[in-house]
């Protein structure tokens, strides 16, 4: 276990070495004896905050109960109607028409890569509170006080030595899942991730930047400070290191995605930055992103008028389209990196199976998670049998069929290449079940 102090010291020493231009400067490797991490693998974790309705993203069109409990908001099974669900070739599940861009991923690239859908996934301890569930999914158990599981991964398993081996991308804050004792940067976008000040610049292009030089001098002062003061200093060092690396990766980036480009949403910014860093050779191991479009649909989950499920003047719809297109853009953009880059997206809970009194749904349990890239192939994971009351949790919620820790755990083993025994480090209270969803090459 590496403490903040270790990190700060290492960081300050590494900095001193790079300033001095020492060839072969000593490398400080984290968790060096585990040697668990596969070479150059990346895990992109996308959080759908607000409790996305899994039954709406991947409607259970093969179950009559679905239409009985959602008389107004259930999506029709696949047909020629543009408002009907998209055919995934499955008996029970189909795809929300606004996610049409994901169909290209579901259909696969002919090289075994595809879209894995876990339609009823949650954290078993879930209590229908947004904030508890987001936090506990982040920490990996019903516990508010421990580090995020991705932070523990960076501390104890990942052997990469780089300021951007873990980051929050596109967001304006760090998610719980990647926060912890080891500070990681959050970078909103590369284009303005610079810090200089007119009065503290000398030389062309502020080559002598006394603002950042002074910050580094102060924050890497040899007397290590405890508490919040120490945290501010660490964050400053993390910031200054990240600025250098992001600038090295360049500020202009055009995806290679068959004419698609990333949106300027939180998700689009994050995916663009992830692609840019990966292509620039940054050894990004884990990244935390958000896809927030107003998932907390207590009311008016559908539009008025003929295009109830696709009316693009409704933001819920247009932003679903935007996000699905961002995912497709990333899928295409990463064509040459698809073996090494896996993206997994999920939410804190799904919603009530029955619709409520205002054409919406309230907080529930199981929700839809999905993944593509790396060993993900086009399968639908185990699901609720159907929506009859007796198959639901408390007769009201989608059950926790595949716990998210089993999904992430399998990705960690199959994609990131860690040994199964190391999962206890990420999810200490969880007994791992292998559902065989991510068997590469099958």
């Amino acid at each position, binding site marked *: 276990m590496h403490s903040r102090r270790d990190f700060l010291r290492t960081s300050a020493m590494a900095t001193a070495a790079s300033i001095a231009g020492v060839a072969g400067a000593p490398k400080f490797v984290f968790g060096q004896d585990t040697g668990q991490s596969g070479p150059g693998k990346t895990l992109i974790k996308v959080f759908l905050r*607000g409790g996305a309705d899994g039954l709406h993203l991947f409607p259970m069109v093969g179950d009559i109960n679905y239409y009985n409990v959602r008389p107004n908001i259930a999506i029709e099974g696949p047909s020629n109607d543009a408002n009907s669900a998209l055919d995934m070739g499955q008996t029970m599940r189909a795809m929300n028409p606004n996610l049409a861009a994901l169909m290209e991923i579901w259909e696969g690239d002919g090289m075994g890569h595809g879209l894995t859908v876990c339609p009823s996934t949650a954290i078993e301890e879930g209590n229908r509170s947004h904030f508890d569930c987001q936090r506990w999914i982040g920490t990996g158990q019903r516990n508010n006080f421990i580090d995020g599981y991705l932070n523990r991964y960076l501390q104890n398993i990942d052997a990469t030595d780089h300021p951007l081996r873990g980051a929050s991308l596109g967001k304006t804050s760090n998610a719980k899942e990647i926060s912890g004792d080891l500070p990681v940067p959050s970078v909103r976008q590369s284009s303005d991730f610079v810090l200089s000040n007119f009065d503290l610049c000398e030389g062309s292009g502020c080559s002598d930047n006394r603002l950042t030089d002074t910050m580094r001098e102060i924050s890497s002062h040899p007397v290590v*400070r405890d508490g919040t003061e120490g945290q501010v200093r660490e964050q400053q060092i993390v910031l200054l290191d990240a600025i250098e690396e992001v600038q090295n990766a360049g500020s202009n980036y055009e995806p290679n995605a068959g004419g698609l480009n990333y949106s300027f949403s939180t998700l689009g910014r994050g995916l663009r930055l992830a692609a840019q860093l990966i292509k620039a050779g940054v050894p990004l191991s884990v990244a935390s992103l958000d896809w927030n479009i107003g998932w907390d649909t*207590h009311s008016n989950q559908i539009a008025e008028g003929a295009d109830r499920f696709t009316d693009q003047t409704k933001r819920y719809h247009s932003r679903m389209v935007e996000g699905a297109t961002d995912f497709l853009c990333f899928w295409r953009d990463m064509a040459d990196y698809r073996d090494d880059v896996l993206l997994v997206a999920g939410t804190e809970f799904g919603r009530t199976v029955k619709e409520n009194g205002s054409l919406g749904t309230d907080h529930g349990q199981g929700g839809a998670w999905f993944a593509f890239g790396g060993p993900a192939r086009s399968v639908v994971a185990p699901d609720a049998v159907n929506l009859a009351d007796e198959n639901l949790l408390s007769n009201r919620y989608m059950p926790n069929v595949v716990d998210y820790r089993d999904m992430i755990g399998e990705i960690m083993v199959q994609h990131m290449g860690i040994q199964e025994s190391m999962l206890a480090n990420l999810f200490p209270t969880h007994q791992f079940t292998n559902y065989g969803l991510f068997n590469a090459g099958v």
Partner: protein
Amino acid sequence: MPDDPTPPAPVDPDPIVILPPDEPVLPDIPTDIPTPDIPTFAGIGPSALAPPETFVLTQAVEITSGPVGDDQIIQSTGQTLFGAVMDPGSFDMVEVSVAPSGRTTTVDVSPMTGQFATRVFEDDFGSDGMVTVTLTGASSVSDEIQPESASYTMQRALPTDGFVQALSRVTYGATPQLYARVRAVGFDTYIEEQLNPDSINDSFFDSLRAGDLISMTSRNTYGMLDQMIEKSLAHASFSEKQLQEVMGAFWVNHFHAAEKDRSMSLQAVADREFFRENAFGTFEELLVYSARSPLMSRFLDNNDSRVGNLNENYGREILELHTVGVDGGYNDDDVIAVSRVFTGWGWEWTNPEESDTLPREHAFIFTESRHDTEDKEIPFLGITINGREGPEGMDEALELITVLSNDPRTQAFVCGKIVQKFVSDAPPSSFVSNCVAAWQASGGSTEAMLRAILLDPAFIETMSLQRNKAKTPFEFAASFVRAFDYLPSAARMEQFYQEVRESVQKAGFNPVRFPAPTGLPEVGAAWLNTHAIIEQYKELTRLANQADTYGSDLQALVLDAGLQTAEETAAYMLAIATADRYREEEYEAVVRELKGTDGFFEPVTEDETRAFRRAIAIIAASPSFHLQ
């Protein structure tokens, strides 16, 4: 637009008051806070901003202000030492060496006043709590002049005057004037003043006409939300009613409701004003207001909830976020019962006939036909709310609000958040229980709860509770404006607030548009991420470049305080910006920027605007400035 306001004249530092040492008072330190093994400082030490106006020198080089009493006591957290040489014509510098730390430095002597400043830092003390500073007057130009030395051995004591908390938590940060004010009246009196906002003369702030920042037209429903933040920044920066502003911001965030589109901006403004004006009110009246607010009803969909067709959003969040907290012991059945109690509570649009000229106004309504008139058993509260028909149906929710307000779980949860705001991100249990006791004794008066928290001796005597919270972006920006004495002219007022507001929003702090019902995090650590930091530093160091444009004239303030050297000036600026808690490396960086590349800082004879601008930028990006 308001007339161009004149900044208030800086208050001269008070003469040193040395109080007789008291019996050492042992604070009622909570069990979870370690007691430092250092004696406490009795009374109020000398000003950290400037030396006394008059003094008599008996030595060639001498400290004129700093250590107190026969024991030569100075603050364990660091103390600025002001001094003077008898003959500034000979001695233009003082070499300083500190034992046992071995630190050495050289400071300038003002050629006009003969004064200089240096500082003992927290790290300078030996393990015995002693420090020896040797000052050697010397000449940088002539070998002929014989150096002369004086040595001072000083002893540390914990400062317990409360100034650091007054300047860090009770307010949005120090200003030169506030520093003097708190010194003049003392901590307890200052708190009492602040708890009685009606007694505070706020005529200067009133003259700024901050209300004009919000333009109430139908075409401005989006901009109004930005202007609301700007008005709050004006209050935080310039009003004397600081505690009211801090507490009002707490309540509006506790009862957070976001604008879903642009139709309820006026209600958002009204709610913000209510929580400011009633910041010290009782919890129950605040909760009733929040429950009736059309903005809240719309945000959490209560207006969509009706008998037989429930929407559980508000029913859940009033429990989880506003009252008993997520660990309050309720389950899904309780959420449903509470939602049923609130059926019929909603809002209506009251001025549709004026929609071309005025923003929409809304009002609370109770709709009998939507109300569930059955009895509601709420198991976790152990009560049944009797169902009522007709207009009395509305009273069910009022009855429930009273029960929730008197529930110890609500009191512990809300007090925990208040303690977290004022005392520590990890709220010490003793403060929470004092707050709960004050709640129960006063019927939920915020004023009583704050008095219990802020006037607990442990609040000002426990070192680990000081400067241990990171500022939110809003607090960061307001404290910047205050510390560096910005005051734009009327003509530049709008542009100024816009720039400050953008610094706050770009860092991710965007009240009223924040979509999660939790409100924005009060835990300072939540804002310690590289995105928030880079945005704040970018925007506010840019404001540092515009110090002269926006009315910051630190050069005049410093000269008025009788200070002339870079070291004196750095000590002055940092004392205000950090409540006098800063590090040697920060101080040295500020001194260096004040002196500039030529090494000279001459505020008496030269325009040093650029030097002050550089110093402001460096302080803004200093770790100590990030703390409160």
